[in-house]
């Protein structure tokens, strides 16, 4: 639950996990799409409460990497352990992990035949078996948190892109996940809507959520991330704090990438 301390900023009280415990632990992970070696020797450890931004050129495997974490993609080699449970073919493990990991997609993927409120309450009612009245109340709280409570009874087709993405964030939060994955959440948005979504993500970050974010929004990375990871051709090339990453890139490819994105 979020509370306000005396300085007015929100901090998560009784964090869902010990910060020394690994939220995500990826070891020697490889993935192939057919013959194509898309992820090579990924080693990544994410602590509870940590916020990571993953960046890199298109095709570098960033989205594939985070999609492996909630088993939207399968890895062929290595291990992924999320919140103490290893990701294998075992369906029970997969479902357990998916209920702890929320995901926000580039193209929102809201359910168009349900209202915003129904989108948010669907999983709590049908997966966690929470009674409808309780789920509705919780969903309205999250819709307020993403600042669109008045859109609760509208259908996604009636909402703008920024509003849809915020509903998508609220929908994931309604399952009370411990980890949130963002796959280029603002890439499909008009510039004037990017700000409203980023504000929601910043507020979420400040409440202590563990976040893995694939994004090109470097301002967001600088303000909020603990670590920035650069990927290219399926490998993790470099990772560092935002300050070090942007000011002292070590690898040549990192320098090339930064020169391309920071100078337009």
């Amino acid at each position, binding site marked *: 639950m979020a509370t306000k301390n005396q300085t007015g900023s929100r901090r998560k009280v009784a964090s869902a996990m010990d910060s020394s415990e690994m939220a995500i632990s990826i070891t020697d992970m490889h993935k192939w799409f057919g013959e194509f070696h898309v992820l090579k020797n990924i080693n990544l450890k994410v602590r509870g409460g940590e916020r990571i931004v993953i960046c890199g050129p298109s095709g570098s495997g960033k989205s594939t990497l985070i999609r492996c974490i909630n088993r939207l993609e399968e890895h062929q080699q290595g291990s992924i352990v999320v919140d103490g449970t290893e990701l294998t073919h075992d369906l029970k493990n997969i479902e357990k992990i998916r209920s702890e990991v929320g995901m926000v*997609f580039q193209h929102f*993927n809201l359910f168009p*035949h349900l209202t915003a409120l129904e989108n948010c309450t669907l999983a709590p009612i049908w997966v966690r078996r929470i009674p409808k009245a309780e789920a509705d109340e919780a969903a309205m709280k999250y819709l307020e948190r993403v600042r669109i409570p008045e859109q609760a009874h509208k259908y996604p087709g009636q909402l703008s892109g920024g509003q849809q993405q915020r509903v998508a964030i609220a929908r*994931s939060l309604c399952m009370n996940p411990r980890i949130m994955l963002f796959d280029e959440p603002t890439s499909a948005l008009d510039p004037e809507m990017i700000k409203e979504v980023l504000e929601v993500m910043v507020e979420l970050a400040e409440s202590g959520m563990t976040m893995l974010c694939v994004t090109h929004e470097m301002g967001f990375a600088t303000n909020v991330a603990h670590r920035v990871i650069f990927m290219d051709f399926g490998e993790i090339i470099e990772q560092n704090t935002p300050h070090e990453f942007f000011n002292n890139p070590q690898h040549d490819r990192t320098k090339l990438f930064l020169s391309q994105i920071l100078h337009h």
Partner: protein
Amino acid sequence: MTESSTPQDYVPGTHPDLPPPVGTTGAIGWARKNLFSSPLNIALTLISVYILISIIPPLVDWALVKSVWTAENRVECWGKMEEPEGAACWAFVKSRLQLFIYGFYPQAERWRAQLSFVLLIFAILPVLYDKLPGRKHWFWYVVAFPFIAGWLLVGGFGLTPVDTDQIGGIMLALVIGVTGISFSLPIGIALALGRQSNMPVLRLLCVLFIEFMRGIPLIAFLFVASTMLNYFMPPGTAFDLLMRVLIVVTLFAAAYIAEVVRGGLQGLSTGQHEAADALGLNYWKAQRLIILPQALKISIPGIVNTFIGLFKDTTLVLIIGMFDPLGVGRAALADAEWAGLAREVYLFVAMFFFICCFSMSRYSLYLERKLHTGH
């Protein structure tokens, strides 16, 4: 600034909302845009109007204005008209109406057919319209209805048994049509899901079944059902002909429905499956809550199309000696007192099918409008 052709210049930001020019909206606007917009359009409009004027007044004249509704036989009927055969002799249809509706169902038991029909209306309404109060409680009634209606129509257990050969006419068309439609939809959906499944054996079985049922004409299946099925069954089983027809028609339609639904399933973006997975919904919950509602909604035109075709295909049972409305019509035409009134009979049967099929198609439009959520 150049001279403006508008009557008044407004300061930017103060332009009021004006009505559109006369002649671009309303009935006149519609006619100008759709009927008279180009020389080709004008020519086509005039030709169509000419065709309609040549056909419709004489048709209405023949069918309604000059028609004869009461007579004892054809000669008398034609005697009542200004010129023989100059108008429709609906007296024939009227005198044979019971035959058209019930076929050869015994007179004394017709109340059972009528009761089944009333019960059918009550079973269909909650399925079609979800604004009815207390709709949830009718669920068990709807599920039980096929058994109730079956018992009522066929008899046994306290009601005099009626041979299914005696069911005919409109009753037969409704029995085959309603049974075929209601059972082929769930079976078709199951086949479509099976065909998409990751389990190779299940997928193979579904594909084989669908391709087999689609590859052979319905008429051939009906022949097989009426003549050869006895060879495939263990000796001594006497499978009722109507039952065999119902099974064949249902499975045939299910294969078509499966392909329509598969098209609908393919129309969904993979993002929907991924979002459902990411929220932790298992396969059945995702299908039931997310995938199928959307896929079925897209498939409504195709599904209703298949149902309309199925309903009309019920007349094929004519070939195996059952008396659907067309079969009854032909039997009635064999009567010497009324021979020669083929037009009236076929028009009547055509009207029956048209009314049923058109209602289905209107309902489908209603359903699409109701489910439209702006995407």
